[in-house]
């Protein structure tokens, strides 16, 4: 419990900053919605002029773009990207932080098992992300109610918002594996930006090629906003694969960390 609270406190500042940033992106997009929807017809004609591949890459879905849910899912592609960086940052720094700040010797010579250390750190990371999502989700619903022109389906809206959390959990797990495997990570941001953007581009490519299998290679595509809009639910097969990947990543992290030599720096 003491490690959990200590870690939570350590993430406090960055969680606040990310929360504010994510909410700011959302507010910025949503406040543009009323003017967009007013000129919907003109915009549609304009956007139709864009090549289809480009529209797919930008995940512009013209049929839905001018409904609040469609517009929100467009905004989400940016919000989720930023959120992925947040999650990846936390994940990568979980273990590497101790090595970089040379505090591993402090923590690991205390009467605790390494498993308990990983659990506490994971729980703290999870709690930070959960908190981010709860507050962000509440803010998003409030904002949507402010700018709506007609009633919208709140469940679908929440399902859309929840994609942020799902993608974040995947990147959190990925970050932990990387941080446990690497001997020393000098700059967390470099690692997480590189990884997140690589997966983002893989996902974008998949969008252009309309290839279903490629979706499995990008955490961003496990939750497809277009599908959620249409069906007001998730694609179960992707959720299962995602959950398995997270479980494998976390299991591996536990195993590697408990076998790892902690070298003096």
């Amino acid at each position, binding site marked *: 419990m*003491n490690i959990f609270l200590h870690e939570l406190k350590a993430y406090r500042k960055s969680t606040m900053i990310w929360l504010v940033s994510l909410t700011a992106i959302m507010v910025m997009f949503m406040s543009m919605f009323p003017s967009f929807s007013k000129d919907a017809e003109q915009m549609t004609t304009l956007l139709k002029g864009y090549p289809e591949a480009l529209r797919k890459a930008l995940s512009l879905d013209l049929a839905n773009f001018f409904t609040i849910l469609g517009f929100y899912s467009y905004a989400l592609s940016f919000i989720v990207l930023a959120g992925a960086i947040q999650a990846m940052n936390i994940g990568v720094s979980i273990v590497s932080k101790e090595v970089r700040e040379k505090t591993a*010797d402090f923590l*690991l010579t205390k*009467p*605790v098992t390494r498993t308990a250390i990983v659990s506490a750190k994971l729980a703290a990371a999870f709690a930070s992300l959960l908190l981010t999502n709860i507050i962000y989700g509440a803010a998003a619903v409030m904002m949507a109610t402010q700018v709506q022109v007609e009633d919208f389906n709140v469940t679908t809206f929440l399902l859309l918002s929840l994609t942020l959390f799902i993608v974040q959990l995947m990147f959190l797990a990925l970050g932990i594996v990387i941080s446990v495997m690497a001997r020393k990570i000098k700059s967390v941001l470099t690692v997480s930006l590189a990884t997140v953007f690589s997966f983002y581009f893989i996902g974008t490519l998949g969008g252009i090629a309309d290839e279903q299998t490629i979706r499995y290679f990008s955490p961003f595509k496990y939750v497809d906003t277009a599908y959620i809009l249409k069906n007001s639910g998730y694609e179960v097969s992707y959720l299962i694969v995602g959950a398995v990947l997270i479980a494998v990543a976390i299991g591996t992290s536990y195993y590697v960390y408990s076998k790892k030599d*902690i070298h003096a720096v």
Partner: protein
Amino acid sequence: MKNVIEIDHLTKTYGKARGITNISFNVEEGEIFGFIGPNGAGKSTTIRTLLSLIYPTSGSAKIFGKDCIEFAPEIKKEIGYLPSEVFYYDNMKVIELLKYSASFYKKDCTKRIKELAEIMDLDLTKKIDDLSLGNKKKVGIVQGLLHEPKLIILDEPTSGLDPLMQQRFFELLEAEHKKGATVLFSSHILTEVQRLCDRVAIIKEGEIVAVEKISTLQENNYKKFKIHTKANLDADYFNLAGVSNLVVNNDTVSFLFRGNLNSVMKKISDVEIANVWIDEPDLEEIFMHYYVKEA
């Protein structure tokens, strides 16, 4: 005597870098045990294995009679460790860090923290970030001792401490020792080991060269003499039993001596001298001594 630490053929190899080979020695309950060797000889590797920060390639070690890997969390309740390089969570205040450290042990350490901080002259309200190296070291000392451990493991603890604080720190260790704590003290400075320890293990290039009582070590040790005399001396004046490497250069005599110091001192007092230097041999010279003995 019960053994607090039993190291049994411990080996750790890392790729091409040297680790430790076949290390065995015991530390008895209630003793201050020195562990000396030059930098990179394997002192830290041994200590880090004892603390299960790294895992042995082969061999094993027991602390309090229990395997140090298998029972690591349990053993560590009674271990206080001070790493050679202390570097604690920067964003915390000293007192926050010490409380965090104390929270791992199921006892109230508040009083002990205050006592130790007073002895070591440590300001608890400062941010760790703002502390000098020596003061960070003090945080490390307090952190290592606040739960009144039965076994204190110190890895080059004095670097960065000024002489006054070193003195206080040694007194503190002696007090803990009187209360019954066992101390494993690693260092590359012979004099501090000599001052505190009952026995020492000497490690060189990953292997234990000798485990000796300090008293035996001192008897076997050379002292370096350099004497400036007022008048030129007979070249053979200092050529007595136990003297080696005698060099006489007009009014300057230098030699190495091993044996009863009084015989040399008497000789010195019989001549008019301008200056005299008596030096401890440095560690390299002691190792030379052990190598010669082995060869």
